[in-house]
């Protein structure tokens, strides 16, 4: 089963306001602030002048400036990198889903545990031990720096991730619907395409969204395989640290640009992302 958090039936308990529940509310509030404030600080710093960024007594009240964003956009690389990240993320996710969703259906329907454990292996193995041989071969073929290699290497992560999530998702769908469709004369593939696939749309969306986010964030693969033309946002951000370590404002603006899409995804798709991140964990 994919794990969705359902409200405990006794919603009436919410009303009971004891000292304990106040304490609980305050604790949850404080914890939430601990997780939120560092990011808020980063967003705020992106709108500060460089003098303000390095003065910790300037808190969250200041007159914001867009200068940092103007500077990094004018420098050129960041928008190009965002385009590259978008391209690599979308293509690798779509290709991975096309391969992984049907396979996950097959595994989920027939309980093929050996294939399932192959995916676990893919999750355990350190990515560099895949990258070293591939780098070795791609370098000999002169392919390092191409989008093809970036997309293929991202699929190391995306294919196992999507399969991992979708196997448990398909296993949670009632097989009877597909059997009924078969009885009504649908071909086996038809049952998959017309019954299972539409029902699995939320799962596919979740898995694809996560795969895209992990691609967007991936640093190591791009560090190895990208060149100046194809570099993605994390690498651009990393290069900012080395070359412009004093330009905190620009650094924070770049970090903000890369984080905003992720925050948007989190706010809009919270329920699905939580289900995807925790899927497969409650089976033991």
């Amino acid at each position, binding site marked *: 089963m994919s794990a969705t958090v359902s409200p405990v039936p006794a919603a009436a308990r919410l009303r009971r306001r004891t000292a304990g529940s106040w304490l609980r509310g305050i604790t*949850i509030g404080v914890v939430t602030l601990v997780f939120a404030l560092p*990011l808020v600080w980063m967003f705020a710093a992106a709108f500060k002048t460089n003098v303000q960024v390095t003065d910790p007594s300037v808190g969250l009240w200041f007159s914001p400036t867009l200068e940092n964003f103007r500077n990094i956009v004018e420098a050129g690389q960041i928008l190009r990198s965002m385009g590259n990240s978008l391209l690599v993320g979308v293509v690798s996710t779509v290709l991975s889903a096309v391969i992984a969703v049907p396979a996950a259906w097959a595994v989920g329907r027939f309980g093929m545990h050996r294939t399932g454990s192959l995916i676990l292996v893919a999750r355990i193995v350190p990515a560099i031990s895949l990258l070293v041989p591939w*780098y070795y071969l791609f370098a000999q073929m002169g392919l390092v720096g191409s989008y093809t290699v970036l997309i293929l290497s991202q699929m190391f992560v995306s294919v196992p991730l999507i399969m991992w999530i979708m196997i448990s998702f398909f296993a949670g769908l009632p097989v009877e619907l597909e059997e009924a469709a078969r009885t009504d004369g649908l071909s086996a593939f038809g049952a998959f395409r017309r019954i299972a696939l539409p029902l699995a749309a939320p799962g596919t969306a979740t898995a694809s969204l996560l795969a895209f986010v992990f691609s967007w964030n991936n640093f190591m693969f791009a560090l190895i395989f990208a060149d100046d033309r194809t570099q993605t946002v994390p690498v651009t951000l990393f290069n900012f640290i080395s070359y412009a370590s004093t330009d905190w404002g620009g650094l924070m603006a770049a970090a903000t640009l890369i984080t905003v899409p992720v925050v948007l995804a989190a706010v809009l798709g919270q329920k699905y992302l939580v289900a995807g991140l925790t899927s497969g964990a409650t089976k033991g």
Partner: protein
Amino acid sequence: MSTTEVSPARPAAASGGGPAPARRPRTFEQANRRLKWAMLTPALLFVGLMIVFPLVYTVDLSLTDAFGAVNAGKGYVGLQNFADALGDTRRFWPAARRTLVFTVGAVILETVLGLALAMLMRKPFRGMRWVRTVLIIPLLTTPVAIGILWLLILDPTNGIANHLLAGIGLPRQEFLGSVGQSLPTLMLIDVWQWTPMMTLLLLAGLTTLPEEPEEAARVDGANGWQRFRHIVLPMLGPTLATALVLRAVDALKTFDILYATKGAGGGSDFEVETLNVYAYGLTFDYQEYGLAAAVLVLFTLFIIGVVVLLRRRGGRKTA
């Protein structure tokens, strides 16, 4: 998980001659057997070609003296690279120790804090949706951006962290600027980023638990701690074990944030160089492909060892 294994085909239902109807009523599983393979093949090919093959190649490379240009020749040197790695007390063993310290420290803290937070958030409350949204943001944020953000906060001279410490009368800290404090600081950053993952995993596990045993214990007069210790915790065992394995595997492989904050080699004195960072440096900075492959083989065995250990432990506890 559905365990409808492919049952042995009913004897030749479709192979009989005669005017068979176009579509014979066969069972769902039989009809789908060919389709199953058609659907699995692309993924299996991909996993085989892109993941299994490189692993085999890594093992092969670890037995060679591959070095320098990628199309330079290489000769087999037996287990020499493994001997070199295991005899290296300057880089390899310290890196192995740091990998273990980082993982054990961070994952223990994340488990304890994550479990506490999950218990706290177990009963629904107003604003739960927003709290969960805030919790998933650190997990999904680019690790390089997180590294940069903490570099600013923890900057020894201009950071807000030292400003706050001074405010409550504590001495200034060097954090990532010092050799001694770098690894502990990065562990705490890891705890900040990944405790929410533990919380969400355990929260998902908690919602699947039946309520009756706890109610029964409550009726019998067990207090909150006793119910947690003797009812909830044992029932949560399998989820806890899985969450530990997932988090430990990822923590062992931590790379981005270490590399982004401390650079190549894990700093001037290799102070945050873990096995992953070490293997990366060997390959891409020193072109020591053979030695790097040997380190990776050892590292992979190390990870598998941890997984097996945790699984066995988890299994025994819940048995």
